[in-house]
């Protein structure tokens, strides 16, 4: 898979799928705040990209593994572990993009913890290790297994980490400048600003897809051209229809199928039957397989790993060399190498001028099978092999070869499962046998572990202290900046305006009170005049009224005095503010003068450049004229 050619990424130093895909890519994203319905989200992603014909289960595995590691990490970081279904405060972004070469699946999240753990060295170590020890190690190792290339991007300033799994399509478009994947993984630590993500043709939230129709359609989904066409007509944003990408995928399939030259293009072979050399080679291969099966049977009888050769000999040898439990991945690799060797040998012997079935293609098929056995469940393997045999049915015209290949795959499958049984038996045996010698080691290991834990605790305490110190420094800086910002002009201005408003309000109140006092004194004078007229009852009332009024006047006077006092206070406060405002205005005027002078300078400069340009043009003209003259 990793030898497939893809165009170089448009931007590696930016977050998002768009940088890894071509401009005409389609990108789908979704924000997740908890783990519920993740399956439904992956259903939708798969429904959308299924038409590309990739291994759906691998893509699902990438999404699920990626999300759960991010979720687990976020729960720890945000201290949400006490909740039944923890809801994140910062979402985890799932992104899936597809172009005519590849699919990119991205998980982006924030993790202060991984800022320390995810380093170039640790990534390399974990990917190369057969059994990573940390969560992060297992996480990236698993993703690396399912991807053609794993890209880990870390941006320490935002505590963000983005893990992108790139999987090449089965039939990628041939583009100029396309190269095979250089590495199976890539680690990038972005310091400073992130690059702006390049533009993509269509970017869409998963919720905007017509998911009801998609999921219903997928229930009856068949990988056929009709189904692909239907799926391609689903609604997307702005009422557009996605037809281009699907039709492209379909076109690749058809084109590649047509161009797949099994038995074609050769003068000796008519395309319907196998050449005699190839028949011979295949017969030899079949024989080898039978031998291998016989060996397995023998091994089964012996239940040991002492003797044997051929295909499984190497496997047995590798078992006998290693004392630790057998790694199933290693088993697969050894076998693959062995099969490769046999196929190559047989091919070299049998091949003369025109190969009917390219050994590379056959190897690809075998590699696919062995890989599938290594990493997938029985269901996946069967499904994959079924698809593979279907693929070969179409490509291979010869009924004989087709039959042989199906038989070969079936036998190989059988052999593999028998071998897995044997491996498991062997592991069990090894465990039983080694338990006595291991018990002594165990106590030592326990002690070492304890000491390690103590050291880890101490180092954690140190890092905590460092973090606290850093936090304190940050706080002090923030406080400083707050003090500075408090004196900003805008704030000062608003305070000044507020004070002015209060003064004017107080002045209004004082004037109102004066008016009221005048009115009351007028009433008093009138009452006195009436009293002189000798109306006793009225006099009494008026006297009472005057007493009341006097009291009111006194209270008003007091209020007025208070208001005047307040107004003075405000004036006192305002005076220094006014001075500061004046200073600020002076500064602004100075600045504006400077700006004006620089403007003038720039204008003069512009004029000068214009003049110079004209002179240059003149000189050019003169030069041309002189050339013409010379000619």
């Amino acid at each position, binding site marked *: 898979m990793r030898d497939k050619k893809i165009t170089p990424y448009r931007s590696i130093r930016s977050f998002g799928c768009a940088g890894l895909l071509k401009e005409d890519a389609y990108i789908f994203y979704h924000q997740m*705040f*908890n783990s*519920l319905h993740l399956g439904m989200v992956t259903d939708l992603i798969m429904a959308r990209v299924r038409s590309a014909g990739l291994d759906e289960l691998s893509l699902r595995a990438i999404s699920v593994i990626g999300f759960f590691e991010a979720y687990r990490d976020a729960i720890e970081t945000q201290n949400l572990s006490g909740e039944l279904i923890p809801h994140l405060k910062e979402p985890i972004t799932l992104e899936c993009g597809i172009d005519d070469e590849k699919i990119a699946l991205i998980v982006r999240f924030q993790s202060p913890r991984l800022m320390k753990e995810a380093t170039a060295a640790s990534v390399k170590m974990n990917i190369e290790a057969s059994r990573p020890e940390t969560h992060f190690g297992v996480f990236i190792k698993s993703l690396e297994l399912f991807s053609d290339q794993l890209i880990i991007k870390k941006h320490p300033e935002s505590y963000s980490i983005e893990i992108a799994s790139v999987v090449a399509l089965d039939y990628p478009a041939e583009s100029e400048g396309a190269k095979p994947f250089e590495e199976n993984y890539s680690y990038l630590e972005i310091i400073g600003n992130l690059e702006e993500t390049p533009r993509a043709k269509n970017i869409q939230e998963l919720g905007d897809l017509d*998911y009801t129709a998609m999921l219903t359609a997928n229930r009856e989904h068949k990988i056929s051209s009709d189904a692909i066409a239907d799926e391609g007509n689903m609604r997307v*944003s702005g009422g557009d229809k996605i037809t281009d990408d699907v039709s492209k995928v379909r076109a690749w399939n058809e084109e590649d199928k047509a161009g797949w030259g099994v038995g074609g293009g050769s003068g000796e072979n008519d395309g319907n039957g196998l050449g005699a050399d190839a028949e011979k080679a295949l017969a030899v291969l079949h024989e080898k397989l039978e031998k291998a099966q016989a060996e397995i049977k023998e091994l089964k009888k012996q239940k040991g790993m002492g003797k044997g050769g051929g295909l499984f000999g190497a496997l047995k040898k590798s078992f006998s060399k290693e004392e630790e439990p057998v790694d199933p991945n290693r088993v697969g690799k050894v076998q693959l190498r062995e099969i490769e060797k046999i196929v190559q040998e047989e091919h070299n012997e049998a091949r003369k001028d025109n190969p009917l079935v390219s050994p590379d293609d056959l190897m690809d098929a075998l590699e696919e099978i062995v890989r599938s056995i290594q990493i997938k469940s029985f269901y996946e393997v069967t499904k994959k092999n079924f698809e593979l045999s279907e693929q070969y049915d179409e490509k291979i015209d010869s009924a004989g070869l087709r039959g042989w290949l199906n038989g070969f795959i079936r036998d190989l499958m059988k052999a593999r499962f028998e071998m897995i049984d044997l491996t498991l038996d062997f592991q069990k045996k090894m465990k039983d046998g080694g338990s006595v010698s291991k018990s002594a080691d165990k106590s030592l290991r326990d002690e070492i572990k304890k000491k390690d834990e103590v050291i880890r605790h101490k180092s954690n305490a140190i890092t905590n202290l460092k973090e606290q110190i850093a936090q304190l420094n940050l706080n002090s800086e923030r406080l400083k900046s707050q003090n500075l910002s408090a004196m900003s002009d*805008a704030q000062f201005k608003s305070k000044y305006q507020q004070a002015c408003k209060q003064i004017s309000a107080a002045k209004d109140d004082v004037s109102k009170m004066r008016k009221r006092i005048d009115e009351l004194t007028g009433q008093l004078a009138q009452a006195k005049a009436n009293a002189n007229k000798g109306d006793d009852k009225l006099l009494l009332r008026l006297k009472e009224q005057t007493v009341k009024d006097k009291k009111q006047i006194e209270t008003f006077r007091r209020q007025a005095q208070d208001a005047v006092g307040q107004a003075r206070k405000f004036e006192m406060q305002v005076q220094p503010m006014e001075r500061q405002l004046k200073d600020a205005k002076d500064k602004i005027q100075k600045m504006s003068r400077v700006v004006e002078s620089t403007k003038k300078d720039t204008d003069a400069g512009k004029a000068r450049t214009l003049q110079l340009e004209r002179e240059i043009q003149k000189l050019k003209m003169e030069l041309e004229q002189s050339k013409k003259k010379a000619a």
Partner: protein
Amino acid sequence: MNFDKRKRSKEEARDLVHIPADEIRPYEVLTAPVYVYLKANQKFIALKGPLDFFDENSIKNILGKNNIFIGPFYEEAQEIKKYAKALREELMQPYVRYNDFNDRPFPDPQITLPTYARSRICLRKATEIWSSDRTIEPFVVMIYIDELCGLIPKSDLIRAYNRDVDQFELALLRSSWAVFLAMHLGYYDLDALTHLRLNAFNWTFDLPNNKVGFSETDRIIKTAMETVKVIDQKTIQDLMFKERDDELSRRLAARFDFRAVEYLGDDQNSWSIYGEKGFLVER
């Protein structure tokens, strides 16, 4: 916030809404000017303007002893709040519902709502307050988000108000706009939206624009700050995101287009703080 008609004549009583004092909650951001009737002057005098708030004491001492009237935009605001409440109820639906089964909670996965469906509901509901011409007023967004996310904590509100009133008002508008943008980007979790709002509110004070971080939520806040620049910004046009050249704006533009086709009708309700029912005269 600036508003016209700080004093209203007795005759204008018909335009105002009389509300009992207990209907005003302490530290709830006001959606229209609040008036008190002075018998002596025979006039309505504005006590507080929009985007201001009352504390417990002022409610007890001033509002409790007087007849309180509120500007006509109050009714409009109540209508906007109804839409927000509907979305809130939708988002408050449990992710997993339970049936009683042998006296123990038993999950029934058949009636749960997928996350992407929630995201779509958010978009559909948020469209209800956009105008047909794809514009919206920041103040309308503020009312909607205030109802959706609930009150800003008292301590944050007072701290911000005491520091700078203008910045406080701008922070209210920007933080609401940030949450509104997040909703359009597929943020459907109410807790997360509330958290984002508070962050955005505090960042207007604590961080200058150029120092906002790089995470997705940081970039949403930054975009909100860049698109709501001043308190008296009249409207926000969603098409402006097409002109911006950053990943977030591209996503927003795509979502706005989708929404325009799917949900935005020609007969959308539109609310404005300008004009007869508003509190500002269009100049």
